[in-house]
């Protein structure tokens, strides 16, 4: 019974998600037509003749009617084609997806920092109410949600990079896959994905063990040194937010009748707190965190700007300044679709944690 309704719930969510994705693509496509400025002006030389301008517009396909351009863009997207960068003339999708891993790495690191710190802190704070640790946690979460993360990043750089020289001030240094690459070298041969690329024999992963342990350790140290400050910068707001939510959720749950009943029948306090109360606290916490995912991605954009982190946000801002439309559109679509995707996953996870969600 439960599995059937959960399945239908997820299917409904997925269909809704598809509609939102279509909306995202359409809005992003229309953005070029509702904002002032002709893209050709940005590409053409300042003294370009009308003839040259027309020629550039025709080359980029900008002289066609809107609906033709729209359909063309949609069919391109389905094949993974986002057009060519106006500036560098390379494939927009390649550029966008090349920048994506750095952003995901940063967002995941920040989430790990936030979850690892905030849930214990929230629980401790709720169970030791009106004690110094509770006041400390409350103060931290108040200041944490009130601090602009770019400023926090600069302050961290000021203290830990400039004053003490413990961390580098900026750049990514090394990507996490490179740590693994020192141990096992993985190559992909002959990719044959549906809709993308040419027909072939199928994807083949070739593993080549290297086991450069010392090199891997060096890489890991470099990686950690570069990601620590950005991850704290991006993660602090969420640490503060989740601490707050966990604390108030736990307080509410601990006052419920079932907690009193469990205590009355002699269940160990740890079981009451962590198995029952905490589990019921987490479902609404996850909802809010899911809704705040946008803040995480938005925060990543500005954190990247502070630390010169070569992610999607840096690419987007560069493209906006240059009016490189295929890159702007591609980055926005990846961000929007990523949000919808992660949110759907969060919904599914929540349905698993709290089956009451499905009933709504």
């Amino acid at each position: 019974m439960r599995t059937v309704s959960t399945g239908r719930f997820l299917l409904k969510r997925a269909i809704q998600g598809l509609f939102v994705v279509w909306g995202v693509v359409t809005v992003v496509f229309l953005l070029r037509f509702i904002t002032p400025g002709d893209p050709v002006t940005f590409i053409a030389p300042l003294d370009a003749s009308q003839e040259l301008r027309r020629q550039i517009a025709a080359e980029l396909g900008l002289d066609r009617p809107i609906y033709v351009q729209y359909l063309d863009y949609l069919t391109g997207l389905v094949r993974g084609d986002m057009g060519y960068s106006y500036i560098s003339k390379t494939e927009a999708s390649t550029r966008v997806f090349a920048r994506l891993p750095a952003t995901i790495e940063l967002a995941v690191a920040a989430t790990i920092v936030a979850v690892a710190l905030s849930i214990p802190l929230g629980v401790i704070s709720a169970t030791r109410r009106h004690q110094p640790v509770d006041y400390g946690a409350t103060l931290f979460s108040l200041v944490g949600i009130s601090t602009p993360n770019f400023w926090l990043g600069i302050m961290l750089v000021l203290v830990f990079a400039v004053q003490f020289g413990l961390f580098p001030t900026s750049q990514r240094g090394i990507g996490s896959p490179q740590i693994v690459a020192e141990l096992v070298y993985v190559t992909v041969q002959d990719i044959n994905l549906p809709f993308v690329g040419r027909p072939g024999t199928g994807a083949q992963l070739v593993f080549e063990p290297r086991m450069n342990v010392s090199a891997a350790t060096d890489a890991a140290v470099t990686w950690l040194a570069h990601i620590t400050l950005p991850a704290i910068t991006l993660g602090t707001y969420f640490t503060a937010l989740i601490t707050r939510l966990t604390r108030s959720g736990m307080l509410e749950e601990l006052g419920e009748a079932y907690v009193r009943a469990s205590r009355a029948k002699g269940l160990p306090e740890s079981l009451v707190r962590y198995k029952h109360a905490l589990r019921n606290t987490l479902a609404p916490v996850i909802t809010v965190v899911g809704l705040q995912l946008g803040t995480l991605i938005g925060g990543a954009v500005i954190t990247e700007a502070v630390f010169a982190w070569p992610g999607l946000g840096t690419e987007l801002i560069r493209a906006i300044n240059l009016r490189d439309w295929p890159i702007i559109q591609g980055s926005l679509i990846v961000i929007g679709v990523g949000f919808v995707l992660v949110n759907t996953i969060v919904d599914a996870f929540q349905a698993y944690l709290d089956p009451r969600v499905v009933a709504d």
Partner: protein
Amino acid sequence: MVGLDDLPVPVSNETLGRVREALTPSPRTIRNLRKELRQSGLAKLGIALIVGVVLMAAFAPVLAPHNPKNQTLDENQLPPLGFDRKTTNTTTEMVNGSITIVNQTTWVNSTVEHPLGTDSLGRDMLSRTIYGARTSLIVGIVGTSIAALFGVTVGLLAGYYSGRIDDVLMRSADVMLAFPSLVLAVALVGLIGTASLRVPDPFVVVGLTPNMPETFTLPGTVIIVVGLVNWVWFARVARSEALSVRSEEYIKAARSVGASDRHIVLRHVLPNSITPIIVLATIQVAAIILLESALAFLGFSGTTLSWGFDIAQGRQYLSSSWWIATVPGLAIVSTVVGINLVGDWLRDALDPGIEGEGGGP
């Protein structure tokens, strides 16, 4: 089903009167607010911080010791009171026919003239921080008003009519939500451009403070964009409130005696949804102030008198003059902490039962 001409979009005096009535708190609400305020020191701190920032913004020309735009290059990067800055002066000297380079360490001391120091162009940090409060507050309050007006209208319509209107409005809200507000704001401000509006400063017009800037620059695009990217939150709250009251008996009763939809929405649905909307609006002012500072930091702003702009400037001088980036950041944090504390106070007082129940072992 009613026609679209019944929608409460055109705002008449009568409508305004009803909205005002809906916004007037009941005696019980005022009692709750007072009681909560008496018990909470944090709420008092929040109100004090907000009053401080509002006064700073309102009387900026009177309070600021210097013109925030005046550059005095020979007084650049002066440290705040109680600190000093070490610099190395490099001079060349002719000694016995050969040139030697002499590195001389000198100390730059703070002056009472510039209690919070000066920036890289010798502009007074205290004055810039005071003027920055104006930008933050105006963008925060006007931006929130735009978001609330638009979002609450959409949300009430969606929740009250439900059905197809609801579906269309809420799906478009979902599309909006898929773009993080900062990303959308950066894209919109970056692509539309930063139009700004110069408003004459009343203090200077009257002649009270002749040395201060004659006009104050309102970042027009930023104000509208931060409002437009945040309406969804209001729409969601207003919609769920409208959904929960629309099936109440008194709404049915009002409908059965022939009350128009506009009457019901303004007279019954809005007043019953106003509490969560006010709490949300408070938190949104804080969120929009943070958003404005982020936009200014990234260079997408229409004004140079903004805390975020100063932080971006100070970032280049971190190793020599830490205060340029630090001071405006502290101003942002105190303002936003103040607003969040007041938000907590309103939530606790207007919505009893959310927090403060339960209790540990």
